[in-house]
């Protein structure tokens, strides 16, 4: 029984509907769809990847959520302004959420996506565009290597099949071809005289 390949965590793509974690093994990307009780894996093998993309996008849904949260915090701070300490705490929370909203609105997240015929792997990087670029380049390199290796193996196999189907004709040295050399001269040419034996006449 072989050990499963080591899984390197690449990143996640969390939306409101589902949580996704993406791992890399030696031969595939593994996409883990996570719910509370179960993890469901799908593999996207490097040799079946058709397209790898890198694009940048703003998380509009997160933005709306943060706007709603900051509005709720602000309204709560207004509602309890008679209690000075509590109101100040809520106001601070509002300021933090609003600052986070602003940062999220300004920063665009980088998204790396690999598409196969049957599966798709998407990784979202909010604050690290450099890492997204590195993973994009690494992914393209690995996919190219895997598909190039398989194509080379297939080419070698087809060449081997061609050789077996149509073997090359034998190549003879000049004068040694069986139909040109005289039958009486062949043994003398093949077996040189031993020491002390009489040399053939010139």
């Amino acid at each position, binding site marked *: *029984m*072989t*050990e*499963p*390949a*080591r*899984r*390197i*965590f690449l990143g996640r793509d969390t939306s409101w509907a589902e949580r996704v974690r993406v*791992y890399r093994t030696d031969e595939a990307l593994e996409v883990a*769809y*996570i*719910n*509370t*009780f*179960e*993890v*469901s*894996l*799908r*593999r996207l093998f490097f*040799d*079946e*990847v*058709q*397209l*790898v*993309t*890198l*694009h940048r*996008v703003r998380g509009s849904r997160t933005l709306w959520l943060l706007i709603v949260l900051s509005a709720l915090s602000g309204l709560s701070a207004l509602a309890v302004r008679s209690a000075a300490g509590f109101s100040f705490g809520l106001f601070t929370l509002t300021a933090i959420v609003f600052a986070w909203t602003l940062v999220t609105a300004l920063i665009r997240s980088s*998204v790396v*996506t690999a*598409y*196969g*015929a*049957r*599966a*798709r792997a998407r990784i979202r990087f909010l604050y690290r565009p450099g890492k997204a670029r590195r993973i*994009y380049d690494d992914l*393209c390199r690995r*996919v*190219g290597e895997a*598909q190039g290796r*398989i*194509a080379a193996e*297939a080419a070698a*196999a087809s060449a081997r*099949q061609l050789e077996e189907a149509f073997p090359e004709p034998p190549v003879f040295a000049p004068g040694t071809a069986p139909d040109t050399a005289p039958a009486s001269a062949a043994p003398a040419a093949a077996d040189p005289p031993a020491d002390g034996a009489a040399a053939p006449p010139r």
Partner: protein
Amino acid sequence: MEVSARADTGPACPYCGAPLLVELMTAGVQRCVACTRGFEAVPFSPPIVRVAVQSVAEAGPGGAVACAQHPGNAAVANCSRCGVFMCGLCRVHIDGRELCPACFDRLAAEGALPSARSRFRNYRGLAALMAFGGCWMYFLGLLTGPVTIYLAIQAQRQRRRLQESDGLVAVILAMLLGLMQIAGGLFFLVSLLGLAARLVAR
């Protein structure tokens, strides 16, 4: 057989999801025809792997045995579980074993093939849920604490089995919170006993 609801049907625009023709694309910045937004992409053409299958007629009467599923194909191996003859199309090589499709289906359904498993219990998520949920019910800490620690240990075993590179911090945090729950539960129990003793003393 369970059919996944996620039907990823090949390359698509990362913004709008419109299908893309990879054959017409070149590596570099692309622009979607549907939404006119730009993104970086590298297209690939996955090699088509063809399995070389020898027919019984080619192998000759004494040269090969027929495959159990494909009588016209020459068998190349026996199933390591049931011993049936199988051709190159039927042979499944997994976890160091050669299996026929029927045995592969049965062993995969039983979970006896580690490489073919695609569903796991989410021990890490369950441990996190118990760890944070249990903190709100510290009076039940003597119950929730051991459960949290058990789930964290299972999550660590799963991490090792799947050779994951992440998740260690979450597991350690869950264990610490489990210990804290036990301490909270003990504190609550001691307080309760002290209160009971004071009531009895009166």
